[in-house]
Structure formats: C-alpha cells, structure tokens
C-alpha cells in the first residue's frame, strides 16, 4: 500500500486539535525546565490502544511541523508493523517527510531503543514509555512515590539494587535501568537496554518521554548529566557480546540473538537496522516527499 504524503484533509494538522497541542507543549516546556520530573498531562484518546505508543505519538504530534523529517523505530527496527504504522500515520496527518536514516531525521520516535548513530544538536528523540514511575515496583502508591520524588527520598531504589546484588551477585536489571537526571530526579529511561543508558548522558539531542496510559511527560534537555545508579564496588556496566553482527560485522552495537533453525542455530544481528545497513554500505534512500 503506497505511503501518501499528502496531508489528510479530514483531520487537523498532526491529528490533535490546536488546544491539545498547546497543552502538551506546555507540559513539555515544564518537563524540559525540570529535567527528569514527571509532568501530568491531559492525554487524549488516540487511534490505537494503550500500550501501543499513544504517549509517544501525542508528544510527536505536538511538536511536529511541515519541515520535519520523521523516523520511527521499534526495538531498533524501522520495518516492524508498529513502526511502519506510526510512520505512515504521521505522513498522512502531518504531511511530513519520513526516513529510515537516523542522520537525516529531525524527530525520531522510538520504542525501547536509542539509535546507534550518535545524535546531533537539533534532533529530538521521543521515547514511548509504558510505566513512567521508576519506583513503581517498589512502592505501589502514587501518593507516596510523588512524595519520595519531592523529598529526594531515594533510599528505596538503592535498596532494590542492593537486593539484586544479594540475590544474583550483581545488579541484574538489564533494561529500564534507573538513572539520576541532573543530580536531582530518578527517572525511568523507558525499557531501553542498559546498553543505551550511556547515550543519554549529556546527549546533544533533546529527549522527550511520553507515557499515554499513565498520562505523564518528562524530558531531558540537551547536555544534561544522566547517571545510571550503582554502588561504588558494583559499578554500572553495559552488555557485551563475544560475537559480532552476522550481517555487518559490528562489534559496537546492541545485538539481537536469533534462532534460525530447528536445531537451535543462533545468529547475532544488529538491533538497529539503519546502523546495520549503513555499515553494509547498501543503504537505499527512502526520503519521500
């Protein structure tokens, strides 16, 4: 089915009405002013259910403009059903150019990964977030977690890391690894692998996080310190592989492990499809207008 890049006349630009976009932009400004702080916002009904990226879509809809170029990835891949659907959605309702090349995008909406290609100033990374509250598993009460954030009472988070070491010999959390933003708020970086956490630290790009079901927006402005929590004698470490990517040979990217036949043969492949294709050298231009 062809991608229409002509904006649908039946909808307001980028689907949301102007007042809603203003409300979301106000929330975004507030979030940027207080890095890592979860700002409640009046989330709207979107044409897909909760759990499918409604938060990310609302954030993107509020900031996207005609001159933008949008990339959408889902666990690193541009070609999954969801990534394709969302990209096509914005092409229709915002009439924007879309791309699979990280370098060419002005807005990148992502589910659960940060692109391998280093981001530049001026780019915006929009994260889809399921559970915005990093303390939720430790403290179920919203009233209490808000108080803990307000008072910087983060002992409970350190306790959970201690417990992980006590039980597993190391901090076993491998995704959605909690971070301290700007030395003040503990934040959930969304379920990205901990491999991606260092990319958030002082990134030149703007990071926006949208949780549709929980109706929270938070942000990390460019060049902000983002530190992964740890202990002095159990410092934060990212994943490593003994293999390299079977397609492009990369040893620096996050690799997905795939079982390729009934005998259990494994293959390791870059999760970031754009990165992999760039390295392979035969990248097809997909810029459309």
């Amino acid at each position, binding site marked *: 089915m062809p991608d229409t890049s002509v904006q649908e006349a039946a909808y307001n630009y980028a689907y949301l009405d102007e007042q809603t976009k203003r409300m979301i932009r106000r929330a975004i400004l507030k979030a940027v002013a207080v890095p890592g702080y979860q700002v409640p916002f009046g989330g709207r009904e979107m044409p897909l259910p909760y759990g499918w990226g409604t938060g990310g879509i609302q954030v993107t809809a509020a900031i996207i403009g005609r001159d933008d170029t949008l990339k959408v990835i889902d666990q690193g891949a541009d070609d999954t059903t969801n990534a394709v659907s969302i990209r096509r959605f914005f092409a229709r309702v915002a009439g924007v150019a879309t791309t699979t090349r990280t370098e060419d995008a002005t807005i990148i909406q992502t589910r659960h990964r940060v692109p391998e290609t280093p981001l530049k100033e001026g780019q915006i990374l929009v994260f889809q977030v399921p559970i915005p509250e990093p303390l939720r598993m430790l403290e179920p009460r919203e009233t209490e977690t808000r108080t803990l954030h307000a008072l910087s009472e983060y*002992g*409970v988070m350190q*306790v959970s890391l201690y417990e992980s070491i006590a039980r597993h010999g190391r901090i076993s959390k491998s995704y959605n690894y909690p971070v301290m933003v700007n030395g003040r708020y503990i934040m959930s970086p969304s379920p990205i692998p901990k491999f991606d956490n260092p990319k958030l630290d002082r990134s030149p790009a703007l990071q926006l996080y949208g949780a549709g079901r929980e109706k929270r927006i938070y942000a990390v402005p460019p060049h902000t310190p983002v530190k992964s929590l740890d202990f002095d*004698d*159990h410092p934060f470490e990212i994943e490593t592989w003994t293999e390299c990517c079977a397609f492009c040979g990369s040893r620096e990217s996050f690799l997905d492990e795939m079982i390729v036949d009934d005998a259990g043969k494994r293959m390791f492949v870059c999760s970031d499809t754009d990165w992999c294709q760039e390295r392979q050298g035969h990248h097809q231009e997909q810029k459309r207008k």
Partner: protein
Amino acid sequence: MTDAPLLQARDVTKHFAGRVACREVTFELWPGEVLGIVGESGSGKTTLLNCLAGRMTPDAGSVAYASASSGVVDIHGLSEARRRLLTRTEWGFVNQDAREGLRMGVSAGANIGERLMAIGARHYGDIRGVAADWLDRVEIEPDRLDDRPTTFSGGMRQRLQIARNLVSNPRLVFMDEPTGGLDVSVQARILDLLRGLVTNLNLSAVLVTHDLGVARLLTHRLMVMQGGRVVEDGLTDQVLDDPRHAYTQMLVSSILPV
C-alpha cells in the same frame, strides 16, 4: 548531667470525633532515660505515642525535640521533609507488629542497610558488613542476611525491626508494645536485648506497654494513663512499689503471681 531535656511535651491533647483520646499530657524526657507509658486498652497511650513521634498531630499542646544539629525544634511545626528525615536518622520507631516496620519483600540485609543507603551510603560491601554486624547484635544467625523476613519467626522479625531502627544510631526510640503477641520466652530474649542495647548505646526511649513486668525491666520512669489522662508518674520503682492513685494500685495488684 546535661542541661536540656531531649523531648518536651506540653499539654498534648488529641480528640477523635468528640471523644478525648489523650488530655494535657506534660513531661520532660532527658538523655539516657527510658520512659514507660502504661495503661489498659483505651487509655490513650498509643495515641500519645503517635503524637510524640510525629505520626499524628495533636489538637492542642506541643512536642519539642532537642535535635543533634538544629537545636530545639517543634516536631509538628517542622516541614514534612524535615520530620521524615528526623524519623530516619535521629529517631527510631519499633511497632508492635514487626511487619509494619519492615520491608517484607527484601532481605534482612537490605532492611537493615536501608537507612544507611537513604543517607548516601554507596558501598555494597560496607553496607553488608554493617548489616551483618547488627544481625549479630540482635542475635540472628549470620546466614539469614539474605533471607526475607517472610521466612522469619515473629521474634526474629521483631529483632530485625530493632536492628533496622538502631543502625542509624538514633538518639530517641519510640516503642509500641515491642513484645506484644510474642511467646514468653521470646519476649524475655527481646527484653533482655533491648535492655542491653539501651544501656550500651545510651539510648533514650518512650515505651508504651500494658505489661507492668516489661515496664519494671526496661523503664526508669513510668506514666500511668487512664481515660486519656496521666493519673500517676514517677520513677518506675516508685510507681510500682508505692502506688498512690487508685487506678495504679488496682493495676499493680492485678498482676497474677507466678
């Protein structure tokens, strides 16, 4: 002898829906003293304890505490942030039901280490070492360090709760029936432990109990409450050996001899 009381309660009064729970309670607690509050159910002793410990706000009166770093503070005039910090550092609160004072889903070590981590401790090995030391002090086997309190007996949970509170070297500990509901032999062990810790750490404490034997063993001073009022007070031996108020005399004479 120091020259300032650690805790000063003045006319502390609390109502619940028109009924007075505690009325105009006034006393001073000095460093190193253990004050017992005895009374039967409905005497207002637990309400008073909660007002003293900042868990409830009195309707009238004041509670002043001589803090380590900021002089005398009005407990109920503090911001919530400061009061919560005080509760985690300079104070302890031992609940009758240990489950209310523990994180049941994390290990004993994590429970004890939490206060340290809350004030910035970041070396896992050191935290674990301190926690192990405290387990030893409260007579829990060292190999239980990584076990969760769900696997502990009632007495062990209570001892863990005590360790969790004392790890931050509090100056003042509030205790609400710390041995209530436990078997007699378990009680004896915990009382003995508390006695030793109070003496060795020079703790001050306010202890609510309905058990005069516990009061005799642990407290230096005693306040007897009836119907929300303090009807008699003095040194523990004075109140128990020379009771003057009718209610106190009745309490003392009601103890079954062994």
